[in-house]
C-alpha cells in the first residue's frame, strides 16, 4: 500500500468501485488549510495528453455549485503512480446510500435519490453527464445524499468495468450499445438505482445469477421489469424514467427530483 500520494498521508485503502480506480482515505496536508478530517484521494490513470481535458472537466464540476455533489478539493500530478493525476475530494462518513452508516427507511431512500438527482442536474448544467450513476456513486453526508464525480481517466473507449451484475443493473442500456452519456441516460440510472434500493429483486428478472458478460447482454436486449410490489406512485415514477423512448422520461434530473419529493412511499 502506498504511504503517501503527493503530500497526502494514506490512512487506508478504500474498496474499489466499478471504474477500476484506486482510492485512499488520506490525511490532508496542512497547506490546504483544512482541518485534519480525512479526505478521499483517487488515483487517475491518464497520459499527459489527457491532463488538460480532465482538469478542465474537474474545474467545470467544481464550479457546479450544487450542495448535492461531492466537494472537490484539489487535483494534481501524481508522479509516483506512473505520471497520472490525483483527485482529492471530501470523504463522507455517512457511508454509501446502499449501506449507510445510519439506516435509511423508504422515505429516506426517496429523499436520498432526490438529492442525488439534484446533484446530477448540477452536473448537467455545467455540461457534464455522469454516465455511471449507481449505489456506489451516491454517498450520505450531513448535507443529505451526494453524487460522486463520474469515472475519470482509464483506457480510451472504456465504458465500465463490471465485476458483477450489480455493477451493470443500473447502467443505461444505450451506453452498452455505444451511446454517449446524457441527461436522459443519467435519469434512467437514477431510477434504476432507486429501484435497487427499494426492491428485493433486480430490475431484470433472473439477473442475480448472471455472470458479468451475461448481465451486460441482458441489459442490452431485455426490458427492465419494475417490481409491482412497490408503492404505485414510486413504481410509476421509476417506470417513467425507464421508458425506452428518452423523450418520455423526465426531461431533466431536477424534474425527477421534484417528482420524487412529491411521491409518497405509502402509495
Amino acid at each position: 500500500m502506498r504511504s503517501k500520494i503527493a503530500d497526502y498521508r494514506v490512512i487506508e485503502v478504500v474498496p474499489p468501485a466499478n471504474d477500476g480506480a484506486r482510492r485512499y482515505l488520506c490525511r490532508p496536508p496542512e497547506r490546504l488549510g483544512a482541518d485534519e478530517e480525512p479526505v478521499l484521494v483517487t488515483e487517475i490513470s491518464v497520459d499527459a495528453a489527457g491532463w488538460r481535458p480532465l482538469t478542465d472537466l474537474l474545474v467545470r464540476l467544481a464550479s457546479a455549485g450544487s450542495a448535492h455533489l461531492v466537494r472537490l478539493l484539489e487535483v494534481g500530478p501524481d508522479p509516483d503512480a506512473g505520471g497520472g493525476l490525483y483527485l482529492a475530494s471530501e470523504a463522507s462518513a455517512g457511508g454509501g446510500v446502499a449501506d449507510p452508516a445510519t439506516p435509511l427507511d423508504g422515505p429516506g431512500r426517496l429523499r436520498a435519490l432526490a438529492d442525488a438527482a439534484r446533484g446530477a442536474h448540477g452536473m448537467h448544467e455545467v455540461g457534464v453527464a455522469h454516465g455511471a450513476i449507481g449505489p456506489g456513486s451516491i454517498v450520505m453526508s450531513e448535507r443529505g445524499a451526494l453524487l460522486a464525480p463520474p469515472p475519470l481517466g482509464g483506457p480510451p473507449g472504456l465504458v465500465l468495468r463490471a465485476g458483477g451484475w450489480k455493477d451493470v443493473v443500473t447502467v443505461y442500456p444505450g451506453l452498452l450499445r455505444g451511446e454517449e452519456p446524457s441527461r436522459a441516460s443519467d435519469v434512467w440510472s437514477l431510477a434504476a438505482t432507486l429501484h435497487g434500493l427499494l426492491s428485493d429483486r433486480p430490475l431484470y428478472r433472473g439477473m442475480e445469477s448472471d455472470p458479468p458478460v451475461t448481465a451486460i447482454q441482458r441489459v442490452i436486449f431485455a426490458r427492465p421489469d419494475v417490481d409491482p410490489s412497490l408503492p404505485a406512485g414510486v413504481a410509476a415514477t421509476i417506470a417513467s424514467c425507464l421508458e425506452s423512448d428518452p423523450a418520455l422520461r423526465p426531461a431533466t434530473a431536477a424534474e425527477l427530483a421534484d417528482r420524487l419529493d412529491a411521491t409518497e412511499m405509502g402509495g
Partner: protein
Amino acid sequence: MIERVVVMPGPGTVIRYGGIVIWADPSASPALVSFLTQSARNLAASTRGGRQIADHIAEVLANRDPEPGVAFVVMGPSDHGWASLMHGPVQAWDGAQWLSPRPSPGWLQAILTPQPSVTVGRAGTPMPTLHPDSMLDFEAGVVPGAGFVLVPTPDRRLRTGRPADTGAAGAAEAAQAPAQAIPAAPAADEDEATELLSTAGVAPAAQPVAAAGVALAAQPDATAGVAPAAQPDAAAGVAPAAETDDTPGEAPATQVLPALGGARAAGPLAAGAGAAPESQPPPQGEPSPGLPPAVAGPGTLGSIDLRAVGAVPATPLPIGVGPDKPVAGAAMVAGVLCPRGHFNRPGTTACVRCSMAIPPGSADNVSGSRPPLGVLVADDGAVYRLDAGYLVGSDPVHDPTVSGGLARPLELPGDNVVASHAEIRLHGWDVTVIDRGSPGGTHLFEPGAGEWTRVKPFEQRRLRPGTHVAFAQRIVTFAAPWIAEDTPR
C-alpha cells in the same frame, strides 16, 4: 481529387482509399501492409490526407524503421499538391523528373506536381506510358500490383508552389497534356538521381538510416521533405522553401500529430481514427475557452485548488432528444433515419435509440456519420465502446497502429496473447477482426455455431453481434443493438 488510378501488373500491393494511394513491394510484411491499409482507410476522406499520412509515417520512421529495406510509397492530397513519402528503393516520375530516396535504405518526403500524372514503382524498373484512352481505373481496395499511375483531376495537378508551374496557362496545358513517354528511369546507383535530390535538399548519405529522410520537425508544410533550399530548383519537384502552410486555423502538422510511444497530442490523424475532438486538449499553454487557466496551487507543483474555482461559463447539456451527436472522425455511411432523426443501419425497422418504428424504405440511403457500432465486452467485465477500432494484445500501446493514433489499445494480458495480437476494425456498418499472425491464434464462436473456428492470419472476418472472439485464452464478446442474423450492408 483523383481522376483515376491505374495499377501496373506485377508483384507488390497497391492500396487505395479515397485520395490516398499506396504501393508496397512484395517484401513488405503483412503487418506493414495492414498498417498502411488502415491508415489509408482512416484518412480516405481527408483533403489533407496525403500530408497527414506522410507526416505520420515520417514520425514513425524517425523513431524506428522496422523494415528499412522495404520499398513503399504513400501519396495523397495536401494543401499544396500531392504529398508523398517514398521509402526504400522506389522511384516516382511526375512528368518532369525522377524522385527516389537517397541513400537507400532511407526515405523522402516531397510534394509532387503531376504533369499530368505520377508513376510510382520499384527503383530501376521500367515505367509504362499511360494511354489516354485507357479505361482502367482502381477505385478502392487492396490489390496486387507492381506500382501505379495516379491521374489527378485537373484542379489538383498543379497546385504546388513550383515557380515554373504556377501559371494558369501551365495548368491548362498540363490538364490537356496527352500521354507522355517516360524517359528511362535512372539506375538506382546512378548519379543523376542523387544529384537531383541533393539539389532538392535531401539529407546527406552520412546520416543514419532512421534520419535519412529529412528533418521534419521544424519545417512548415510546403517544405516538408526537403531541407530549406537555398536555390529552389524549378525542376526539383518540390515546393520552394519560402512557402509556408498558412491554412487558417490549422496548426503545423508537427504540432498536432501524435508522437511515438509517449504523450500524444491529438490531431487530425487521431480524429480520423475516431478520437473525440471534444475531449482533445487544446495546445499546451493555451487555456480552453471559458475556463480559467490551470494555475499552480499552494502545494505540489501543478496542482489546482478546486475549492477556489468560481463560476465558469459552461454550456449545459441539451434537454430532450435531439439527433445523434456525430462521432468525431467517424466514416460517412449510408443508413436510414428514424422519425426523430437518429441514424440507423440500413434494414433497421425500429430505431435503436428511441425505438420508434422506421417505415420500410423511408429516408433510405441517407448519408451520415457512423454511430458507435456496439461494444466489446471482455471476459474481465471491461466494456469498450466501438466508436473506433482497437488493437488487441498484451502490450498494444507500443504498436505504431496505436502510437500513431490509428487504433485504440485494448490491453488483454494472458497466456499466449502477444503484444499486438489482432485488430478490431470498423468497416462501414461492420465490425471485423484481423489476426496479426499471432502464435496463439484468434478464434470465433458465432451465434448458433457449435464450435470455435480459427481466423486465418491477416484474414478479415466480419463479426456478427453476439460472436465470442478468443484471443488465445482471453475472450471478448461483440455486443450490438443489431440483430444477430445477417443484415443488409
